[in-house]
C-alpha cells in the first residue's frame, strides 16, 4: 500500500514535469541552430561572451530561431567537429580554419545560400577566391592574418647591425655576429613545434621558391628540391646555435613568442597580432621593429596570408535560419565586435577593411596581403596533410631533411 502510494506519487510528478515541459514549448515551429566556433584569443581569454551576446540579441530579433554557440579551443575544435559529424550530430555552422574536406564530401551549403547577396558583395574578393572548391565558393572568410618579420631593435643595435638582412647569406652573417656578441640570446626564434610548424616552414620555403602543393601538376610537392634546400639551410642555422635549440620542440606561443617577449630572441616571424600579444604577455618593454621576410638570393620575399572560415552544413536543412544568423554576424556593428573579441586580425569585409586601413597596427599588413601566399586550403586533404606537417616537419630541420620530407610527401600523397 505504502509502496503503491509512492509509485503513484512518482508517476504524477513525472506527468507534471512532462506537462510543464510541453507547456513552455512555443506552439509554432522553432529552429535551433548549433554553431561550433574556434576561440581566437586563447591565453585564458575567450570569445564566449561575445557569442552569447550575439545569440541573445539575435534571438530577441528572431524569436523563432535559437542559436547555441559552442566555443572550442583551436587545439580541440577539429577533433570536436569530426566527432560530432561522425556521431550524427552535424552542426549547422562552424567557424574554424578549413573548409575543403567537408566541401568535397558534399556536406556544405555554397556561400550564395549562407548569406544574402548584399552581404556576399561586401566580402573582399581576394578572400572569396581562397574559399572555392571546384570553382564554387563554399565558405565565407571570417577574418585573416598576415605575417611579417619582427625584430628586437635594442638587441640588433647592441650587436651593431644597422641594416636588416635581405638575403639568406646576409642573414647568416648577421646571426653569426649576434651569436658572438650577445651571449644567451638566440638570433632567430624558429617555432617548428606542432602548434604552427606549417606556417613557419611555409614562410621559409616561400622565400626559396618552394611550396606545399603544385597547382599545375595537381600534386603535393613537400619533398621538392627547394623545400629540401630550405630545411637544410634552417638546419645549418640550428647547428651553429643561431636559433633556439630543438626547433622541432618549439611551439609558437609557449616557446618562440615567449623567448621574443623575454628579450631572448632577436628575430621572429610574427603574425599581425604579435604586437597585442606582447603587450598582454609581459613583452610590452620590447622595442619592436617590423620588416619583410628574408629570402634566398634570386627569390622574392613572400608573406604568408592565413584566413579562416564560416562554413554551413546542409544536413539539418536549416538554410533560411542560417542565412539570417550569418547576415546578422556580418552586420558592420556586429562584425566589428567579432573582430575586437577575436583580437587584432585583418577584416574580411570591404566595409570593415576600409576602417582598418587607417589603423596603424593593421595597415602595413593589409598592404602585404595582395602578394601573400596562402595555404593550399582548397585541396580536400589539406587539413589532414597540415596535421602531418605540424607533427613531422620540425624533424626535417633536426634530422635528415630529405628523408623526413620524403616521408611527409608519401603520407600527403596517400591522405584522403
Amino acid at each position, binding site marked *: 500500500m505504502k509502496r503503491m502510494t509512492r509509485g503513484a506519487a512518482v508517476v504524477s510528478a513525472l506527468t507534471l514535469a512532462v506537462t510543464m515541459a510541453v507547456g513552455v514549448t512555443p506552439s509554432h515551429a522553432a529552429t535551433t541552430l548549433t554553431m561550433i566556433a574556434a576561440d581566437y584569443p586563447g591565453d585564458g581569454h575567450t570569445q564566449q561572451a561575445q557569442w552569447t551576446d550575439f545569440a541573445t540579441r539575435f534571438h530577441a530579433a528572431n524569436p523563432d530561431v535559437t542559436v547555441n554557440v559552442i566555443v572550442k579551443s583551436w587545439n580541440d575544435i577539429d*577533433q570536436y567537429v569530426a566527432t560530432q559529424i561522425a556521431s550524427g550530430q552535424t552542426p549547422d555552422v562552424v567557424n574554424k580554419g578549413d573548409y575543403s*574536406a567537408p566541401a568535397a564530401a558534399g556536406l556544405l551549403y555554397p556561400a550564395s545560400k549562407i548569406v544574402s547577396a548584399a552581404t556576399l558583395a561586401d566580402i573582399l574578393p581576394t578572400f572569396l577566391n581562397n574559399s572555392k572548391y571546384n570553382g564554387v565558393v563554399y565558405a565565407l572568410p571570417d577574418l585573416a592574418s598576415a605575417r611579417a618579420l619582427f625584430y628586437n631593435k635594442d638587441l640588433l643595435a647592441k650587436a651593431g647591425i644597422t641594416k636588416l638582412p635581405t638575403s639568406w647569406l646576409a642573414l647568416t652573417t648577421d646571426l653569426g655576429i649576434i651569436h658572438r656578441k650577445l651571449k644567451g640570446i638566440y638570433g632567430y626564434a624558429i617555432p617548428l613545434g606542432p602548434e604552427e610548424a606549417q606556417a613557419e616552414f611555409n614562410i621559409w620555403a616561400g622565400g626559396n621558391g618552394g611550396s606545399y602543393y603544385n597547382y599545375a601538376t595537381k600534386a603535393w610537392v613537400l619533398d621538392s628540391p627547394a623545400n629540401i634546400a630550405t630545411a637544410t639551410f634552417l638546419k645549418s642555422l640550428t647547428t651553429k646555435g643561431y636559433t633556439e*635549440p630543438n626547433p622541432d*620542440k618549439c611551439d609558437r606561443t609557449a*616557446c618562440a613568442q615567449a623567448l621574443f617577449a623575454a628579450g631572448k630572441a632577436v628575430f621572429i616571424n610574427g603574425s599581425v597580432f604579435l604586437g597585442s600579444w606582447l603587450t598582454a604577455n609581459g613583452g610590452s618593454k620590447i622595442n619592436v621593429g617590423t620588416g619583410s621576410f628574408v629570402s634566398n638570393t634570386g627569390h622574392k620575399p613572400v608573406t604568408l596570408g592565413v584566413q579562416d572560415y564560416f562554413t554551413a552544413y546542409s544536413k539539418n536543412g536549416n538554410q533560411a535560419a542560417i542565412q539570417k544568423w550569418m547576415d546578422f554576424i556580418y552586420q558592420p556593428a556586429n562584425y566589428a565586435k567579432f573582430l575586437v573579441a577575436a583580437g587584432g586580425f585583418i577584416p574580411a569585409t570591404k566595409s570593415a577593411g576600409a576602417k582598418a586601413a587607417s589603423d596603424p597596427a593593421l595597415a602595413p599588413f593589409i598592404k602585404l596581403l595582395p602578394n601573400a601566399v596562402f595555404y593550399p586550403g582548397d585541396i580536400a586533404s589539406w587539413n589532414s596533410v597540415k596535421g602531418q606537417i605540424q*607533427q*613531422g616537419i620540425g*624533424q626535417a630541420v633536426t634530422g635528415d631533411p630529405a628523408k623526413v620530407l620524403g616521408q611527409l610527401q608519401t603520407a600527403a600523397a*596517400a591522405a584522403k
Partner: protein
Amino acid sequence: MTTVRKRYRVGALPWIGPAMAVIFLMVLYPAFEMVKTSFMSIDATGTSHGFTGLSNYRTLFRNPNLTAVLERTVIWTISIVVLTVLISLPVAQILHAKFPGRRFVRYALIVPWAASVVMTSTSWLWILNGYYGVLNRILLSLGLIQDQKQFLGSQTQSFTWLIIVAIFVSVPFTTYVVLAGLTTIGEDILEASTVDGASGWQRYKSIIFPLLRPALLIGMVINLINVFNSFPIIWVMTTGGPGYSTDTTTTLAYKISFRNADIAQSASMATINFGIILIFIVLFLKVSRWRDDS
C-alpha cells in the same frame, strides 16, 4: 534443490544487472564500434563511406613510424613495470618497519598517486622546462651545468624523463600492494625462522618474498595494463614529440585520429592496441585464478 538455485539466480539479477549493463554499454559496445570503425572508410570530415575491408590496416602498416613506436611501447611498458617493482619492494619494506613518523611517510607516498596524472605531468613539464625550469636553476646554481639544458629536447632525454615520471606515478600503488602483502605475513613464521637461525637476507629470500608473490604478481599485471595504456604523461610532457619520437601506440592512435584526421585508421591502431591489452587481461585472469586454486 534445483528450484532453489534457479530462484537464487533470478533473484541475483537486480543486483548484478546494473553492473552487467554498465559493462555492456561502456566496455563491450564501444569496443565493438571501434573494431567496426577500423574496417570502414571514413573521410576527414567524419563522414562514413561504408566498409573497406583491411585497407586501414594496410595503410597503418605502411606508416614509417609504426615499427619504432611498437618497439618503444615494449621498452616503455617493461622498463617502467620492472623498475617500479624494484623500487617498491624496498620502499614497502621500510614502510612496514616501525619508526617514528611512519604514518606521515605513508600518507606522503599517496600524494603522487592521489594527484591527477595530468597535474603531476604538468608540474614535471615546468620543472624540466629548458628556459625557466627549476631543475635548470638548481643545477646552474650548484655549478653542475654551465648552460641551460633542454631536458625535453632530444628524443633520448625526453623519453628517459617520461619513464622517470611514469615510475614516480606508479610506485605508490605498487608499494601499497606490496605493503598489504607484507601485513598478511604472520609474525609467528618470522619469529620461528629467527629461532631457527635464519639471517635477515635468508629470511627475505626464502620466506617473505615467496609469500609476497601473489600480491606482487597482481600488482605487476595491473601496472602492465596501466602503463601500456598510459596517455596523459606522454601527451602533457612531449605530445609524443619531437615528431613521433616519444610516441607509444596509444598516443599514436590519438595523433592519427585527431591530428591527421583519419578516424578509421586510428581505430585500426586502437584495435591492435586492444588485442595486445587482451593478452594482458587473459594473463591477469590466469594469475588471479591461480591464486584461488592455491
